[in-house]
């Protein structure tokens, strides 16, 4: 049985980082001249030497995205089910040590939130929880999926890593995709930011996409939380992970997200800053590396940034997100996991997308299996 860890362990963080910083203008030009690029080319494109070529990268990225995804963008919305959490994550508002009111939605509360989101037009939903296995374990998640399955064509979760058998059971209930970010691929730094709870197990988290692939999930979302460590090295390892997964689990789709550290009630400042231009460079580099991967953009980013990035490679976008359980309809005033940046309503986002020549796609999946 194959595991990414075996490949990952042959790499060294410092050497990888240095090799990225050593890339030259010639390396970037050669990467841009190719029809298909490899991981060394990807390093060049995200390197400081790639910075002056950002416009060329954006042009190419737009063209490739259009060819594969057309003039469309997929809409999705997150729904936070619970902020209970037994982990300590230094950057997260739900971290166990934060003294905030905890809430886990009941069935009727979930349905109240669902009614609000259906009214806005959403058909692809992302369910989010903290990690509290006693109250928000796999049975809770399974129940939530079954509860809303008839109302959403496409259900994704972003919850604690689970075992293969647990994923299999959720898939059977109608689960389409799982997002699981490594946060950082820097082992020691990971330990610092996740000192307590099940999440402190770096290797178990790293192996999660493998378990998902083996369970036969339709889509896996990967990524790193930018700000914990050097974004270039973390992005390289994300790309390495993606390429490994594509080859190993060839029936699975993949998506990448680009979360940057946002202010929240825990208050960690980014160790390594990622500027807007860096993020654009990275998004375009990922598109050049992989024509088919879905690139997702949340409301963490600002209005101006989101208005412009939707034409440069992004294929799915959320709007009007609330990062607190019950935040839409049950208890709109409760505390959020992090502050979102783009607070525009769904209608406003839709008209922005249309004005930029994009067809808004609400539904792009169907439950093809009988329950």
């Amino acid at each position, binding site marked *: 049985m194959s595991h990414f860890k075996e490949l990952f362990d042959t790499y060294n963080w410092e050497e990888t980082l240095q090799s990225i910083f050593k890339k030259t203008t010639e390396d970037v030009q050669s990467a841009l001249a190719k029809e298909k690029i490899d991981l060394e080319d990807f390093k060049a494109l995200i390197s400081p030497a790639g910075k002056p070529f950002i416009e060329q990268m954006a042009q190419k990225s737009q063209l490739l995205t259009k060819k594969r995804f*057309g003039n469309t963008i997929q809409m999705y919305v997150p729904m936070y089910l619970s902020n209970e959490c037994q982990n300590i994550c230094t950057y997260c508002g739900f971290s166990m040590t934060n003294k905030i009111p905890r809430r886990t939605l009941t069935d009727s509360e979930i349905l109240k939130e669902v009614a609000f989101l259906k009214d806005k037009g959403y058909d692809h939903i992302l369910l989010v929880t903290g990690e509290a296995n006693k109250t928000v374990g796999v049975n809770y998640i399974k129940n939530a999926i079954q509860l809303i399955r008839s109302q959403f064509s496409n259900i994704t979760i972003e919850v604690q890593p689970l075992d293969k058998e647990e994923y299999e059971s959720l898939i059977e209930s109608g689960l389409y995709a799982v997002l699981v970010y490594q946060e950082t691929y820097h082992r020691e730094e990971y330990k610092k930011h996740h000192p307590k709870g099940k999440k402190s197990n770096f290797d178990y988290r790293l192996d999660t996409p493998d378990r998902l692939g083996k369970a036969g999930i339709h889509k896996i979302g990967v990524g790193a939380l930018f700000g914990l460590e050097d974004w270039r090295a973390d992005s390289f390892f994300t790309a390495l992970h993606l390429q490994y997964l594509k080859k190993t689990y*060839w029936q*699975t789709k993949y998506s990448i997200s680009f979360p940057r550290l946002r202010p929240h009630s825990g208050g960690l400042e980014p160790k390594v800053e990622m500027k807007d231009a860096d993020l654009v460079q990275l998004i375009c580099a990922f598109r050049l590396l992989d024509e088919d991967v879905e690139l997702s953009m949340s409301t963490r980013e600002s209005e101006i940034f989101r208005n412009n990035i939707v034409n440069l490679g992004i294929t799915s976008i959320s709007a009007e997100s609330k990062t607190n359980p019950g935040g839409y309809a049950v208890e709109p005033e409760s505390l959020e996991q992090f502050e979102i940046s783009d607070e525009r309503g769904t209608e406003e986002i839709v008209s922005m997308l249309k004005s930029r020549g994009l*067809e808004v796609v609400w539904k792009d999946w*169907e439950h093809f299996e009988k329950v």
Partner: protein
Amino acid sequence: MIDILKIANKEFSSRLFTGTGKFSSSMVMKEALLASKSELVTVALKRVDINNNDDDILTHLNHSHINLLPNTSGVRNAKEAVFAAELSREALETNWVKLEIHPDPRYLLPDAIETLKAAEELVKLGFVVMPYIHADPVLCKRLEDVGVQCVMPLGAPIGSNKGLKTVDFLEIIIEQSNVPVIVDAGIGAPSHAAFAMELGADAVLVNTAIAVSKDPVKMAKAFEKAVIAGRMAFEAKLASIKNTAEASSPLTSFLN
């Protein structure tokens, strides 16, 4: 102007089939499809809301000369494909189905084994089955044997715009087939479509090249004309290509 194409119980005066994906809006899609004069338009079941009478895609396709061809894009095996076809028959009131089983989400290449399995079952269930497949002449015959109404071999991977990369195999399929052959996927330019028609394909299916062009309506018209031109040339019998020169002053006339 050109022969009528018959598939199952339907007659088509246009040999250009189209798709509904990747357009910048439903309005643009509608205008382009009308301009193409296409009479058979495929739509992914996963993209339409079958419980909603006001579904944006479906309402824009509501025209007397447009026949809907639901496709099973998104399914990964025969079992899911059959389920999807039944769902679409019930919801869209058509027993026509474009059978697409591509478990590989990147190049969307069809799974020959599952496709044959599903085709056999769907034919038994009374569907008009139009299978999207590799340009595999043997598979085409096998599908014909189980009763599909046409075959839809690919010219190149979906959306690649690369043209007829599989031309040698398409020629064999066209030569051998007793059901209409529709070249599907990879057609990126009107010249590709004309070429397929000149080879004797019965129709072509074009989507990305129209949807993603800067002027989809104009491009749709260009494809409409290319398909007619190619078909007319086929019906008029193209002059055969000669590989050797024929000297105007024969070298061996002294023998006469």
